[in-house]
């Protein structure tokens, strides 16, 4: 029996001790009419050999050059990370409720919190939320709770926030009567036009500011932050953690800094893996820490006075506060956070800066190369981080992407559905994984594709 150690003798001894004749007797409290026979639609068990063969076959997939970003980014992942993270002691441990038996996990989270606080320029960090999108939803809920000056449940949610994030936030917050009000971007720059923000926005709980925004474009975060604070709103920053090695940390935006910082942790050493598990991070300053959802680890001392670590501020959480908790979150993304912690440790500030810079430079170079192709134009004029939007003149973005795939290139993310105003446009990403040869390969593949499509059209 796979994974079950019992021998026939064991079973007999145990049944005798219990005082029943067979295992079936242990289910005698279940009404007979509810009991089922066999699970016919489930295949019979495979042994590990057969399963391994099946999975190896399924894992054989074309491995095209990937220039898609749009919220999940291909970065180099040091081998040490997952070799350590999958050690049984991290992999198969539970949530560190018994602190004395969980010092490894607890200290690691404390170190993670420290790194995230420094990266974002904030005073506190939690131990993770599910992902960037649901993390933003939690940030919205937190802002409504935390903004003492406002009674409003209105949130300003710019159109430059990842559309998938906006959809997730909508799903999660709508039942609590919170409304998300759009803020448009300037078509030329691809960023929110600070100048055209309303002088009287009314009572609003918070403004969400993405940096970089979904187009890869950098927002005027300082002006936006000051404007929001001037109108009694809190500022929720949604940031790419890699970019923070290069860009002003949210804690330093404008005069007072952002109030809540969240984002997707995947770029920090987590594989693409079809979309997860990733993790959402969240930071704030100490004055708001009691409104923050998610676990938090604190350093304390043990009975001998030696430093040690334990979960703290648990009164915010559902297992203590139940219906009054800051969130229903319980299981979070611990193991992925362990990976990110080791990633940040292996890279250090200097390494992460180089990743950010190289990604920026690669995407700049790629953008320049692609624009030189006939029928391809860059959509926005503003500075960007490591993504950019290109528009196709007279050819369908879907068609272009299909043909690029045939050439072994994943060309980008099609924006037409989410941003019809952009026409046939795609979002393209290049990180530090892309060499000059890769960039040339994309350029020449797209040249060929455009030539064929334009030729066909002519």
């Amino acid at each position, binding site marked *: 029996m796979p*994974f*079950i150690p019992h021998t026939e003798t*064991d079973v007999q001894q145990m049944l005798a001790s219990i005082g029943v004749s067979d295992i079936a007797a242990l*289910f*005698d*409290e*279940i009404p007979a009419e*509810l009991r089922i026979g*066999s699970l016919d639609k*489930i295949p019979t*068990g*495979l042994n*590990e050999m057969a399963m391994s063969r099946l999975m190896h076959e*399924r894992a054989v*997939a*074309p491995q095209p050059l990937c220039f898609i970003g749009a919220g*999940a980014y291909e970065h180099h992942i040091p081998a*040490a990370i997952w070799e350590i993270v999958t050690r049984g*002691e991290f992999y198969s*441990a539970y949530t560190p409720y*018994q602190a*004395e*038996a969980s010092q*490894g*996990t607890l*200290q690691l989270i404390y170190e993670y919190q420290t*790194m995230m*606080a420094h*990266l974002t320029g904030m005073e506190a960090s939690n131990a993770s939320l*599910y*992902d*960037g999108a649901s993390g933003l939803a939690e940030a919205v809920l937190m802002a409504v709770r935390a903004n003492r000056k406002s009674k409003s449940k209105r949130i300003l949610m710019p159109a430059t926030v990842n559309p*998938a*994030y906006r959809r997730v936030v909508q*799903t999660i917050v709508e039942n609590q009567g919170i409304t998300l009000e759009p803020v448009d971007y300037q078509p030329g720059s691809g960023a929110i036009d600070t100048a055209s923000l309303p002088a009287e926005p009314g009572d609003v709980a918070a403004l969400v500011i993405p940096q970089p925004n979904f187009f890869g474009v950098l927002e005027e975060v300082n002006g936006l932050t000051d404007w929001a604070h001037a109108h009694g709103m809190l500022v929720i920053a949604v940031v790419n953690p890699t970019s*923070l090695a290069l860009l*002003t940390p949210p804690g330093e935006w404008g005069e007072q800094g952002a109030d809540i910082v969240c984002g997707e942790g995947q770029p920090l050493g987590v594989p*693409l893996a079809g979309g997860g598990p990733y993790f959402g991070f969240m930071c704030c300053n*100490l004055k708001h820490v009691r409104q923050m959802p998610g676990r938090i680890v604190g*350093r*304390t001392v043990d*009975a001998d006075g*030696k430093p*040690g670590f*334990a979960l*703290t501020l648990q009164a915010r959480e559902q*297992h203590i*506060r*139940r*219906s009054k908790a800051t969130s*229903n979150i319980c299981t979070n993304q*611990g*193991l992925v956070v362990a990976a990110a912690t080791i990633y940040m440790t292996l*890279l*250090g*500030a200097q390494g992460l*800066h180089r*990743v950010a*810079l190289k990604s920026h430079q690669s995407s700049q170079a790629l953008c320049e190369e692609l624009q030189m192709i006939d029928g391809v134009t860059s959509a926005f004029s503003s500075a960007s981080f490591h993504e950019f939007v290109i528009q196709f003149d007279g050819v369908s973005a879907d068609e272009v*992407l299909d043909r690029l795939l045939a050439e072994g290139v994943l060309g980008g993310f099609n924006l037409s559905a989410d941003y019809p105003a952009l026409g046939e446009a795609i979002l393209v990403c290049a990180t530090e994984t892309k060499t000059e040869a890769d960039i040339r390969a994309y350029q020449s593949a797209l040249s060929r594709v455009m030539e064929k499509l334009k030729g066909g059209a002519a």
Partner: protein
Amino acid sequence: MTRNTIDQPQDGVIFEKSHRGRSNSCQAPQLNASETTAPLSIPASLLRKSAPLLPEVSEMQAVRHFTRLSQKNFSIDTHFYPLGSCTMKYNPRACNTLAMLPGFLNFHPLAPVETGQGFMACLYELQEILKEVTGMKAVSLTPMAGAQGEFAGMAMIRAYHDARGDTARCEVICPDAAHGTNPATAVMCGYKVKEIPTRADGDIDIEALKEAVGPQTAGIMLTNPSTVGVFERRITEIAKIVHDAGGLLYYDGANLNAILGKVRPGDMGFDVIHMNLHKTFSTPHGGGGPGAGPVGVSERLTPFLPVPMVDYRGDQYRWLTRKDRPQSIGQLSAFAGNAGVLMRAYIYARLLGREGMPRIAEYSVLNANYMMVELQKRGFDLAFPSRRATHEFIVTLKRQAKRLDVTAMDFAKRLLDYGYHAPTTYFPLLVPECFLIEPTETEDKETLDGFIDAMAKIQHEAETQAEMVRAAPYTLPSRRLDDVRAARELDIVWSSKE
């Protein structure tokens, strides 16, 4: 002269091992000359002024630090971990190895489905397996943990009532024994929570339920077997009461171990269920996550399932989105949830197969009943002595706490010294000084006997040297930690000042 008397050279937080200027160049990209010197196109006002404080250590320092940290944990791979309601069973290594094949790890979630057919085939088949095992009509895999599954479930109940214009239903009923996520979730979905009591025999107080339901009832959140470790015998009756009142039934399926392949929530009359794959389907807990909390629904809730789901028609797997399912409550994550966790659960399910699933129920229930009876024979008090255990059961140490001033927490800490992780303590809240004990099916009899012996020894210690027990543990990386100080003198981010 113990391990603790000499500070080990590798102790301390990673920042204390950091050294300004130390770099680990093997992991950083090389920049060519133009890339380092070229003026940035980014305006200075948006650039960071000073580098963040991240550790500056060598790769070996990092490896040594985190390897040594890992050794300070208890885990399934090293210890018996009978944590009730958490299902700490063996996580087969193959699930990890196979889910981490390079071909799976490189699949971008937004890449064309052609490049991920093998990956999506696994997810599709997992949907089918979960449908069959729960007896529900359709499954969405996207929730990222149990609590998010609960959210999805309650949001669907709300969407269902709303779709019918039945908008006055503002209340959700929960038993007092419910897991904290249940009331918290109901509130996130805009509901008020009404608690109903548990009877002395562990079942729900049906009279109280009858009184609680009404036109304001959106639904009820139940676990069966309940969080007190017994099977709710009158479940069909309960379903009828709630349905008759116009409410729907939510099944908190965090712990399916005891019923897998034996009885199905769908057959009991539930409208929606979430499952914790990180419990029943043995994906790792990872020191706190990630998990996966798929939801299954009956016919009437099917249109509302969260997206994406995986569809198979003709010969291609594809994602179903809001476009395909306009009544969906929507997306819960940016992509498709904790896909890698789902892969591990899929592999586990296939290794078990149809014949392996009821076996889990049988042996997890056997182990729990055996431990329950043996502990009772050794003089421990059961919370529900008249009942069978399911996959778990409750011992109450109220007597010890009163008589000897040795609490459940003291027992828990002393168990650590004996090399056993403590059971769940102080949950469910309605049983005083409780141990919720869940051995799971993957532990052998010798291990259970060892634990029972340790409990008996600690009982003896409590009687003869209570002081000693109260000050446990002694043999772990830390002695008992000061929780109160942790919350009062908040130190949650390291700083070099101290």
